[in-house]
């Protein structure tokens, strides 16, 4: 139909157009309806516009009927596949229950298909897989027969992951990540080096298990990440042994643990003791202080305060503190 028309004839044509459009939609609607029915029909190509409608193809019986009880399940589900209701002979039900009823059955149940299933990893199949993979393994060294020995001879552990999936590409970007774990106790560090290393590693150090974990994923290849992780460990180690100029400026706020010398607690105790004993002010403050500090009660007090501050408060520590204070103040 032509669109460029004079107004009058346009109106008329519009009517015609609408009419033909309607007719066309009616026709195409009808056609799609026939096609819709045909889809349900058996796969034979003959059409039947007249005559009785071809009956809808019935679904065959599921093949669970033909499965014997002692069949080889590893053959039915050899690899991870979605749940197939006609291949799994279990009457499972899943989903929100129908009103006043039970969860829907497995036939046509999308919930069962969505979730991952482990039908391919029955104990029998795992046993078979292990048997098949044994030739690829080498022997475990006999000398390493306990965890402690493994830790002792091989203190550093490197983890990497391999991924298998079905898709157009073999590569998985997560496969390049390397995680390196080592216990700091197995490294040769003195006190300063250890503290510096812990400070340098920051979040990567786990205090409870004393492990340093380095995870590298910044390089595109696994080998590169592995080299980088080793490099990081080496650098940390050597840097923590070095002492820089500016480290002398370490203040009390930078300290990792509570040190009693030069702390307010020490000053307070000294003052209290001095007042208690009303020692005459002599010039050798240093000597009196030293003598005061040398006393066993003061030592005890120092221990208990250090413990409290470092380890937190618990029954034992507070008890110790109480005893120390009592002794010191002769209560």
């Amino acid at each position: 139909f032509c669109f460029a028309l004079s107004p009058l004839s346009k109106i008329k044509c519009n009517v015609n157009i609408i009419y033909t459009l309607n007719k066309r939609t009616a026709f195409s609607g009808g056609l799609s309806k026939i096609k819709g029915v045909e889809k349900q029909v058996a796969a034979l190509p003959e059409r039947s516009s007249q005559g009785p409608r071809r009956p809808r193809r019935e679904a065959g019986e599921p093949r669970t009927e033909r499965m014997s009880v002692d069949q080889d399940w590893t053959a039915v589900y050899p690899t991870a596949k979605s749940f197939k209701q006609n291949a799994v002979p279990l009457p499972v039900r899943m989903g929100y229950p129908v009103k006043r009823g039970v969860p829907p059955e497995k036939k046509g149940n999308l919930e069962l298909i969505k979730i991952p299933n482990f039908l391919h990893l029955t104990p029998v199949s795992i046993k078979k897989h292990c048997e098949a993979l044994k030739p690829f393994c080498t022997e475990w060294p006999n000398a390493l027969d306990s965890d402690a020995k493994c830790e002792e001879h091989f203190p550093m552990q490197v983890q990497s992951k391999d991924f298998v999936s079905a898709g157009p590409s073999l590569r998985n970007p997560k496969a390049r990540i390397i995680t390196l774990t080592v216990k700091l106790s197995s490294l040769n560090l003195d006190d300063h080096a250890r503290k510096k290393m812990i400070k340098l590693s920051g979040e990567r150090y786990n205090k409870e298990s004393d492990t340093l974990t380095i995870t590298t994923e910044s390089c595109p290849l696994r080998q590169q990440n592995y080299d980088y992780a080793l490099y990081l460990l080496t650098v940390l180690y050597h840097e923590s042994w070095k002492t820089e100029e500016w480290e002398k400026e370490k203040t009390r706020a930078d300290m990792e643990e509570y040190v009693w010398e030069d702390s307010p607690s020490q000053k307070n105790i000294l003052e209290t003791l001095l007042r208690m004993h009303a020692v005459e002010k002599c010039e050798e403050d240093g000597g009196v202080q030293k003598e005061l500090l040398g006393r066993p009660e003061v030592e005890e007090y120092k221990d208990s305060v250090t413990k409290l501050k470092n380890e937190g408060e618990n029954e034992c520590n507070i008890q110790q503190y109480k005893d120390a204070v009592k002794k010191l103040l002769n209560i």
Partner: protein
Amino acid sequence: MAQMGKTKRFGLCSAAKQPSSTVSGSEEKIIIPKMKTWNAEAVLQALASTVNRDTTASNYVFQDDSYLTPRTSREFKLYYLSQESGRNAAKYFINTFPRYFQKDFAEPHIPCLMPETLELQIDEVSERALTECIQLRKVKAAVDMFDQLMQMGSPVSLDLTNDLLDLICLYGDQEPAQDVPPEQRTNDMGEKHDEIKIKKGRPQRASDFLKIVWGENNNAERIFNMMPEPNSCSYGALIRGMVKHGSIPKAFIMYNDMLNNQLTADVHTFNALISAAPYLKEKYSEKWDLIIDLLKQMAYQKVKPNVLTFNAVLKALQRCGALGRVQAFPVLNEMKALGIAPSLASYDHFLGIFYKAASQAQEHKEIIQEVLNEVSGKSFAAHDPDDVNFFMNTMKICLDTKDMEQAYKLHSLLDIGENWKLLGDSFHQSVYYGRFFNLLCMMEHVDVVLKWYRELSPSLFYPNSQRMRDLFQALDMDNRLDIIPQIWKDIKRMGHDNNTELVEEMLSLMARDKHKPEVQQSFAECALDVKTLYKQTDYGRVQLNWSASSLSSITLILLAAGRIQQAWEILMLFKVTNRVPSEYLLKQFLDCIQMNNNSEQAVALVQISASFCLPLTSHLIKRVQQEFELNEEQKNTLSQL
């Protein structure tokens, strides 16, 4: 998309460890074994070796759903071909519009998924363009390009001309068949095509419709004659083309020309000539002499034979009658002496020499045993297009000789290595399994038969109605007729329920003997199910027609199960369909009625018998009068008959 992550841990020695630590008292040396290496697929192959075949599943290409798996062999073919056609359609789109499919997702690169160039790129007239035409297999365009080059006066090199001759001879001067859809094939192509008769039962193939014949004055000969100095490759191309497309005397003339020009043919040409030799001569001895002659020339010209040479010899010996049987063993020994491993086609032709017809099968029983002993345990690869016929034909021989042991040996050969690939396409497979099952039904106990039945069908093949009848016979022989209702379900599923003979045979088997009550009930259910088939309800089904035997069988089955009312309905059908009930049936019916002591029915029965004018009527009247208590009306009715 299922993902599986595997965490790998391996340890390393720490470099900073103090050697003087005394954590462990023992000083054992830790020996770290050398790491094993394997190729990329080894782990997957190892895991795959743990998996067996699932006996209830259909072919892996189909969707595993009860609605969507094919149930008959016809559906199988339809679905399989529709998948193929979908793939072809997709390939067509990718190749026609390559600009939309340039992005490469696959890592590592998969070349066969990228668009291929199928159209000629180079426009000019040059040798490069001719090379391109030949590579893209465009026969007509290549010949035109060659003619243009010759007209322009630039000579084409010998190698290129040989390539062109190879192309033309391979396709017999036609375009490759799959590029030209049938509608577009023009008339002048049609003249050169002969339609050969399609053998009954075989699926029709394109190659059957279009057997290309070597035409007179075709382009290959013309170009050959234009060549100033044809070499052995050119002669070879022409000879092989002539043999392939059926013009055999010309091939031998060409070969003689070649010898006169002191050129030596290569092994492929000799193979072609040997395979053509039996069609040239008539008498057996002449055929054999020609072949020996060719082989001698081959040896003289120092051309090494290969496995295809010997296969051609053995195939030719199949057409040499008794002479073939004499010469077969020497040929095979010669083959082994030369160190050429026989392929499956060699064994196939060898067996074909001895087991030509089923009647000969009994004479040479030990030959098939020897052959199977030799091939068992070996894994074969495809060397010859005829390799795929081995399993099919050998199973036929086992069937003819009724030798179950050899059949099992043959079947176990399929499990070894890659031999399953040589079983052929779906047609070959169905024939092979059909023959195997036929043999099993004949020879084995019914338990074994049923075990194989469950294993082979429907996952590997769809038995046809003849096989189902064999199965019924096997059940009958070992008295396991109680399984018939289950088999009936399978028959319905496979679509054989429109086969009148099969259905009637099944019904008569069920009706014949007396069985236990629950078995009788199951038979009755089955019979009622069969009865529904006889009514015209389903559109498009072939309707079964009642026959006397089917009607009486169903009636007897229902009587045996004690369902008199339903049996009565069937009895009414006799009149409707103009069939006559047998005497045995009426007697049985009367016995049943007598058990219920229903005199109404007895009288009605006698009336029916009278309406058919059966001679039994008088006997029935007497029986009814004696055994039943009748009232006046009934007595009157009886006396009138």
